[in-house]
């Protein structure tokens, strides 16, 4: 018997159709991967099964969990079903746990709500569950609060809550997206083993083909609220009958065309010399200051003209702090930073504003990077402020037009406001803004991380072609190793404020020397080429 069978599911919210004709089924012990880009309806499919839809939602079709039709259940029966028959894990471990209850309490709650066992028994079982998800109750006390745990540990707590009653079906909605790769690998292992041991069915929702290709028994590809292709993982990857599946696959594995054009003899565009960035830590006593936290610890690096350099590392390693230091947004506590051979900023002094035009930046968030109240013209032209005799009138207009056209937009877009553009278009505008004063270096801080794979492929192409044509250097900061690999000439690996390994991209990826680099590469899920599958 299937643990889940969904037939002809249709859903609309406030009258807007969201899902139509969705068919899914999961057998016991089976992992179904649901993959799709943002807005494809994969999360709402999961919430339909849980019946945790917004009030204005209306659904039709047939959903059966362990042979029981959900449409026939009242709220009381649904509450009985949730947590016992079907459980769910969400994406954000930071917010998915109640901050004011202990983790032990939250795990035990699932048991207490459904069973009539005593509080003490529930606590006992909670401790056992923690053990099972890899949290040793001796080291991580059940009396701790969520904020005292790391992201990975919190996700383990969420998993413990979900599997507490050995549900027949487990729905995991992007459970590893917010985690670092090494943590992601551990959590995926954990889930895989739990499903096997308990013979649960699992729906694993993700946007990452690489993750799913290594995990799922079968796959459903979703797009615009429809399942466009479904079947066993091997078959789907081998046959790729639907155009969209193919497009998704090629975008995920996309490597932009680029040629190295490094001027090895030129003055480095960027030279970071023994740079230190420290944060004050909270005082431990009234009379004695705590030792500051060193986010960037004596980092030295150089970028040559035309060179694309990658900087990788897990969250908290100091890569973004380093980026802010290079952009002279924060003061240095040690060392100095040179742009094109001239000092831009150094410890004990503010930035030299004359050098500022040498470096520009593109940030991660395509939504937060722009003042919503300014036109694109004003947004793109903002860095012109740095030029002493800023061009005016027609000349200025020409510069704006050229920058927009350079990134594939039109001159007429200058009159629009930022909310009229999609995420990908916004990232193009951000690049246009960085390009307009022709800097020698652009810092790309997770610049493609928030984009869907197909858009990401386009932006990577754009970046590659701009670099080739304009000879601009990039410092490409990302946690995503495969993206860094596809676009950089040289790569540096950062950990705990220090650069632990550095080399040409191919060297580092093919023959990592540092143990940490090896671990990172091993943990990164790789999308198998269809031929191998």
């Amino acid at each position, binding site marked *: 018997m299937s643990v889940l069978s969904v037939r002809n599911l249709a859903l609309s919210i406030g009258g807007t159709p969201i899902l139509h004709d969705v068919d899914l089924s999961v057998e016991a012990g089976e992992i179904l991967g649901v993959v799709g880009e943002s807005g494809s309806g994969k999360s709402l499919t999961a919430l339909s099964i849980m019946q945790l839809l917004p009030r204005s939602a209306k659904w039709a079709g047939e959903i059966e969990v362990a042979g029981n039709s959900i449409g026939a259940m009242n709220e009381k029966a649904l509450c009985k079903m*949730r*947590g016992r028959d079907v*459980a769910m894990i*969400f994406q954000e471990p930071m*917010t998915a746990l*109640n*901050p004011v209850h202990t983790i032990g309490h939250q795990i035990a709650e699932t048991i207490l*709500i459904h069973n009539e066992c005593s509080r003490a028994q529930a606590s006992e079982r909670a401790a056992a569950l923690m053990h099972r998800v890899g949290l040793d109750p001796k080291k991580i006390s059940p009396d701790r609060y969520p904020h005292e745990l790391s992201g990975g540990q919190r996700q383990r707590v969420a998993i413990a809550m979900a599997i507490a009653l050995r549900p027949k079906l487990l729905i995991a909605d992007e459970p590893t997206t917010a985690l670092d790769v090494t943590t992601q690998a551990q959590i995926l292992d954990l889930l895989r083993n739990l499903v096997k041991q308990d013979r649960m069915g699992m729906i694993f929702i993700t946007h990452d083909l690489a993750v799913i290709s290594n995990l799922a028994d079968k796959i459903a590809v979703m797009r615009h609220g429809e399942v466009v292709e479904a079947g066993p993982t091997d078959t789907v990857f081998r046959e790729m009958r639907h155009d969209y599946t193919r497009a998704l696959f090629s975008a995920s594995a996309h490597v932009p065309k680029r040629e190295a054009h490094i001027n090895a003899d030129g003055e480095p565009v960027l030279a970071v010399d023994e740079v230190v960035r420290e944060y004050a830590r*909270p005082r431990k006593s*009234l009379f004695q200051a705590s030792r500051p936290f060193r986010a960037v610890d004596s980092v030295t690096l150089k970028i040559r003209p035309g060179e694309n350099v990658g900087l990788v590392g897990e969250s908290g390693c100091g890569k973004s702090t380093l980026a802010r230091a290079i952009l002279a947004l924060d003061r240095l506590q040690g060392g100095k930073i040179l742009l094109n051979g001239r000092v831009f900023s150094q410890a004990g002094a503010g930035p030299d504003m004359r050098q500022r035009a040498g470096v520009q930046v593109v940030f991660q968030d395509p939504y937060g990077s722009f003042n919503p109240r300014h036109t694109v013209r004003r947004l793109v032209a903002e860095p012109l402020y740095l030029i002493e005799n800023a061009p005016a009138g027609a000349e200025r207009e020409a510069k704006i037009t050229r920058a927009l056209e350079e990134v594939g937009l039109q001159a007429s877009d200058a009159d629009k406001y930022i909310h009229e553009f999609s995420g990908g278009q916004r990232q193009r505008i951000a690049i246009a803004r960085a390009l307009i004063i022709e800097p020698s270096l652009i810092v790309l801080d997770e610049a493609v991380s928030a984009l869907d794979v197909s858009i990401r492929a386009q932006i990577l192409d754009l970046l590659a072609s701009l670099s080739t044509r304009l000879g601009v250097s990039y410092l490409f900061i990302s946690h995503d190793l495969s993206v860094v690999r596809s676009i950089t000439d040289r790569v540096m690996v950062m950990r705990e404020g220090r650069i632990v390994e550095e080399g040409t991209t191919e060297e580092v990826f093919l023959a990592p020397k540092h143990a940490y680099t090896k671990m990172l590469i091993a943990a990164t899920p790789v999308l198998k080429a269809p031929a191998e599958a």
Partner: protein
Amino acid sequence: MTLYLLRRLLALMLTLIAASIVVFLVTEIIPGDPASFMMGINADPQAVAALRSELGLDQPLVTRYLAWVIGMVQGDFGLSYTYKVPVSELVGDRILISLPLTLYALLLSTLIAFPAGVVAAARRNTAADFAVIGATQLGVAIPNFWFAMLLVLAFAVNLQWFSAGGFPGWDAGFLEAMKALTLPAIALALPQASILARVMRSSLLDTLDEDFVRTARAKGLTRSQTLWRHALRNALIPVLTIVGLQFSFLLAGGIIIENVFYLPGLGRLVFQAITQRDLIVVRSVIILLVFAVVAVTFLVDIAYAVADPRLRRRAR
């Protein structure tokens, strides 16, 4: 945590010192001489001068400020110019009315606001929600002294259920005393309850939108279980701030209500003291009220830490 508390205590002291200087200077530049006020319009200038020196008003500014502050630190708030009794005694009498009145009003407003806010949030966009929203909008808009007048008209003049004001004293029995405080407490509580209910509602709505509420629902908790076990405690944090603010507001803000119901409370004491230029009373009571405000803020901060474990180790 201890360090955090120490720092807050230090800030509290600084606020008090700054406040004492401000209060002293403001009362210093008030036109009108306490001695001439006490002696009236036919007073003999010699007698006024004698009274001024008796009250210590002929001392230099700094000396008087220091004498006042040092006295307060030692628990001596000085002698009222007009009443000729220690200020602490006056304040002690009055606070036995103002404090119970404040707590009574706070209790009423909490008892009204909590259920109203919770019901409105739990049944968002239903008739119950709209009724609460409408009532609170009206409650916030009604000036409390006008509401007090209407209460007197209805319950004291027409129905004669309560007396129009005054306070029989706690000696007259607890029930009698509470009866005298009931109308004033209602008048004070209505606008506060409205504010509190609105904060409660919106805070709860925000919390109900949080991810962990969805997690709780996915575990199999019913809507109301989720509300009581998960949302409420998180929603309480902004509500606590408001309750804290209301306490200090009510303690000092009862002046008008105390006047309407002629309750001999702290607010009326200062009000009278200002008109009588009994500056020492004005100063000491205002400092006391400022102290109450900062102390309550301090307590609310501690309450935060109890309600939210994330703040227990907060350093700032």
